[in-house]
């Protein structure tokens, strides 16, 4: 029976993927593709303009730093360790930036996926077909949670890594036209570290996104119409009431605490990187490098109460979604 349950979960998740192939697979691929295309177009434009005006990137860079002739190649050979790490960071940044857009898209995909996950099947009554099969509501809702918190981010991360590496190669290739060895340059970047960082962020994303996923799915299972409106309106209206009457003062907390820890957590936690915005890590580690992306720093989050309260709230909301899916009678 255990294998049957596991098998059923696999097929339930697969079913979600079939239905949402557009959001889960094509959205990140297309986004990555467009980003790379725009980059290539930008580079070509720059090259064309550069050639027309007789400016050469390598020489320009060299002129800036050394007030003399030479090219980037010689600049690199003369750089000290500090400069090297700056170049490396710039390349890492290029890699992250190509991923960033994909993750913004992922945020939207997950948000709307959760909002429609149970509502859509109720609206078109196909829930009656799913309910005619020996699949429990618990299994079904959990398969949807897994799709949102694992399947979608894993695919987006894979697409992001691929786009990041391509981006790195494009930048490196462009520079190699100006006399810089590609490999020498790539050694300065940390594609492996960036890749591992991205993969390592997936479990954190799962945990951090849980309250949002739970809230949106509960709305999806509960709302008779317009789950989007309910999902937004309820926390925002509560937030306004809290601000207006200063209720949080009773707990020695400010209204902004409520907005940040309840409203934003319920609505925006499914956006990748949302955990970074709220945390103090950005400030502690300084903004000069990308260390805040490193897992050692990111996993400090596991020690935060905020995360675990969110996980508990998310679990409770998912349980509510399961209950509503079981008993909501749409007549």
């Amino acid at each position, binding site marked *: 029976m255990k294998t049957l349950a596991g098998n059923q979960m696999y097929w339930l998740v697969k079913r979600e993927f079939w239905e949402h192939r557009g959001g889960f697979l094509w959205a990140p691929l297309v986004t990555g593709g467009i980003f790379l295309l725009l980059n290539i177009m930008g580079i070509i434009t720059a090259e064309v303009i550069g050639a027309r005006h007789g400016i050469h990137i390598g020489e320009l860079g060299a002129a800036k730093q050394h007030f003399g002739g030479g090219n980037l190649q010689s600049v690199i050979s003369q750089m000290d360790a500090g400069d090297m790490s700056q170049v490396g960071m710039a390349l890492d940044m290029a890699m992250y930036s190509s991923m960033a857009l994909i993750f913004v898209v992922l945020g939207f995909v997950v948000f709307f996926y959760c909002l429609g996950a149970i509502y859509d099947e109720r609206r*078109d009554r196909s829930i009656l077909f799913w309910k005619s099969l020996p699949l429990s509501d618990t299994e079904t809702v959990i398969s949807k949670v897994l799709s949102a918190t694992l399947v979608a981010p894993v695919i987006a991360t894979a697409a992001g890594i691929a786009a990041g590496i391509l981006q790195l190669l494009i930048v490196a290739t462009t520079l190699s036209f100006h006399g810089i060895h590609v490999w020498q340059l790539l050694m300065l970047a940390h594609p492996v570290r960036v890749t591992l960082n991205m993969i390592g962020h997936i479990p954190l994303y799962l945990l951090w996104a849980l309250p949002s996923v739970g809230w949106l799915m509960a709305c999806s299972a509960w709302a008779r119409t317009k789950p989007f409106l309910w999902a937004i309106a309820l926390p925002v209206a509560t937030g306004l009431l809290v601000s207006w009457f200063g209720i949080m003062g009773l707990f020695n907390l400010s209204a902004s605490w409520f907005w940040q820890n309840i409203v934003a957590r319920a609505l925006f936690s499914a956006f990748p990187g949302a955990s970074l915005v709220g945390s103090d890590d950005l400030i502690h580690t300084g903004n000069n490098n990308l260390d805040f992306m490193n897992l050692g720093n990111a996993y400090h989050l596991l020690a935060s109460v905020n995360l675990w309260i969110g996980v508990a709230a998310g679990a409770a909301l998912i349980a509510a979604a399961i209950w509503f899916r079981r008993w909501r009678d749409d007549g």
Partner: protein
Amino acid sequence: MSAIVTARNLSKRYKNTVALDSVDFQIQSGRIVGLIGPNGAGKTTALKAILGLTRFDGELSVLGYDPRTQRDKLMEQVCFIADVAVLPRWIRVREAVDFVAHVHPRFDRAKCEAFLARTKLTPDQRVRQMSKGMIVQLHLALVMAIDARLLVLDEPTLGLDILYRKQFYQSLLEDYFDENKTIIITTHQVEEVEHILTDLMFIRDGKIVLDTDMDAVGDRFAEVMVSADQAAAARALKPIDERQVFGKSIFLFDGADRPTLEALGEIRRPSVSDLFVATMKGTYA
């Protein structure tokens, strides 16, 4: 015979209406039961209760399970077609078969593919590209390949043309039904199911007003065609319905004495639809 469904004091109240009013009934194994009633009589509510899709008061046992608390177990042996067109519109034929084959322990894939081979459906076709009739063909192929003990059909042929409707019931009888299976059907198209039913249940205003097997219908009810001069005598026997055809009157009697009726004219077994109309008189008045 063992009871597949047993209901005692089954009640369901919505905010301001009573959908089921302390209903008692039993459904035996190996029967095809027609649950027939006007709109809003409580048919769908009764089916939903049996399928564990809604809460109710009273006792209900389906295959020995309580549909409220043991629904997951129950659904391994119960199947239903809730309505035409509840298959998800995005799904492809191939995906639907794959999915059910892997999540349903009692699904026979070869059987399903044999049913599909008889239709014009292609593996890559999506439900949204199908006509209503084709959707039902797909749904039926999926359901008939499941070795379920109870099949519930709620208006399965609504909106289908006559070819699909005939084919639907024919496949059901020829390729699916046997003495180990039980089928409950609700429909308004009474004429089309009356030959396949073994049992009849009329439901009106949340109450079962008739619960009988089809053989007993012939014994209990009689339709007599009476010429005008004997109409008064026939009316004295308190018929439950009367209509005029070609200057003669057709009376419908419930439990009247056979020899007396034979003296009045030719006796026929009433059709289910005539019986239905007579029983439900005044429902919408």
